[in-house]
């Protein structure tokens, strides 16, 4: 039986839409359509053509980010409608925008504008250069640092999912090299991510001023629900702290593993991944502790709904 307090956790942009949620989440589609309509009006008319099964937009980095944000917001609103409410939240990488929306700090539309502006500013600084990201599973941080020291100039460990799961950003050439080295060093799995931007690395530090200026033009409110920082695991309690976090998120290393531990030590007993897929749920298996992790779909699965009654207040 899942316990309260609950944290909503929001994934980064997806590389695929793994399942159509309409079959086991009655009512979800209406939220999705509601936000699609708003997004099409506010930022991109073509978004209205999104079809979960057609898997459209996956080849378009910006639209994939917009769609992931939109779906995350749909899931969190759907849960709230079912009286499942979080005590805290956190957003993995670009999931910070959905966390900010969920916490009541920004409007849905401002979240879209933030994503588009961040993407545009980043694109200016990365134009003509070949960057990328990669993941390594099965090596420790010490092992990885050892293979990085030899000839890595742009490579940074930009996120950690578990004690043995790391994400890199850097030049595409160096990312490929380090993935090869990691494989030779004994990594259980290596993967080149389908992105062209070195997120969360110093390579993007030049976005600080223009993106910061854009954020100042928006109207942020203090979060109604505490958001935990992935940068230093502090609790972001006011709008100023959240604005700084969103700016720094682009060019600063994150640590998702420590963030989960922090949420857990703050008392969170149940984590719900509000987004398409269950990437965060899968990675959470390596988080020590008593808390449980759920995808939204698993909460509404007819086979196990009875064991989740504690979450529902209706």
């Amino acid at each position, binding site marked *: 039986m899942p316990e309260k307090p609950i944290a909503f956790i929001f994934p980064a942009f997806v590389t695929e839409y793994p399942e159509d949620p309409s079959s086991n989440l009655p009512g979800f589609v209406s939220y999705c359509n509601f936000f699609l309509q708003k997004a099409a009006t506010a930022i991109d008319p073509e978004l209205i053509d999104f079809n979960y099964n057609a898997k459209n937009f996956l080849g378009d980095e910006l639209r994939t980010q917009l769609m992931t944000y939109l779906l995350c917001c749909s899931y969190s609103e759907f849960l709230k409608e079912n009286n499942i409410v979080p005590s805290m939240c956190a957003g993995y990488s670009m999931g910070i925008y959905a966390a900010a929306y969920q916490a009541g700090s920004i409007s849905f539309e401002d979240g879209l504008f933030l994503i588009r502006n961040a993407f545009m500013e980043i694109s200016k600084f990365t134009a003509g250069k070949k960057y990328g990201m990669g993941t390594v599973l099965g090596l420790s941080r010490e092992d990885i640092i050892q293979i990085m020291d030899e000839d890595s100039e742009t490579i940074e460990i930009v996120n950690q999912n578990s004690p043995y799961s790391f994400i890199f950003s850097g030049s595409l050439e160096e990312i490929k090299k380090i993935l090869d080295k990691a*494989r030779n060093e004994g*990594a*259980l799995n290596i993967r080149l991510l389908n992105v062209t931007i070195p997120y969360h690395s110093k390579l993007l530090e030049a976005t600080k001023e223009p993106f910061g200026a854009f954020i100042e033009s928006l109207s942020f409110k203090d979060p109604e629900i505490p958001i935990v920082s992935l940068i230093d695991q502090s609790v972001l309690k006011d709008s100023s702290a959240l604005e700084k976090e969103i700016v720094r998120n682009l060019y600063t290393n994150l640590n998702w593993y420590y963030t989960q531990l922090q949420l857990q030590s703050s008392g969170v007993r149940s984590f719900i991944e509000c987004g398409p897929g269950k990437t965060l749920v899968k990675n959470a298996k390596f988080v020590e502790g008593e808390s449980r992790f759920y995808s939204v779909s698993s909460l509404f699965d007819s086979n196990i709904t009875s064991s989740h009654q504690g979450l529902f207040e209706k």
Partner: protein
Amino acid sequence: MVKITENIRAEVTGIIYNFFADECEVDLPTINDNTNIIKDLDGDSLMFLELIEIFKKKYNLDIELKTIGKYAVKHPVQTIGELIEMQMRIIEFENKLLETDK
């Protein structure tokens, strides 16, 4: 080093079969030694890592993950049967796993 017995083999086999049935949400009887972990079960490397951790705890194994990774490059696993054989060798040889190739 754990001496491999028929009981241990049966135990390891049972754990692996049940693990994939649960994780991949398939009926246990549909899994056999020839089942392809990726193509048939949509399994992934996180599941492999989770299984390693299960066996490390259960048999108190002294083995580094990177030793298993290096071994797996030379002996890639595709089926449940191949995974069971690899786990048996991990349990039997622990950190000396790579020496068994010499």
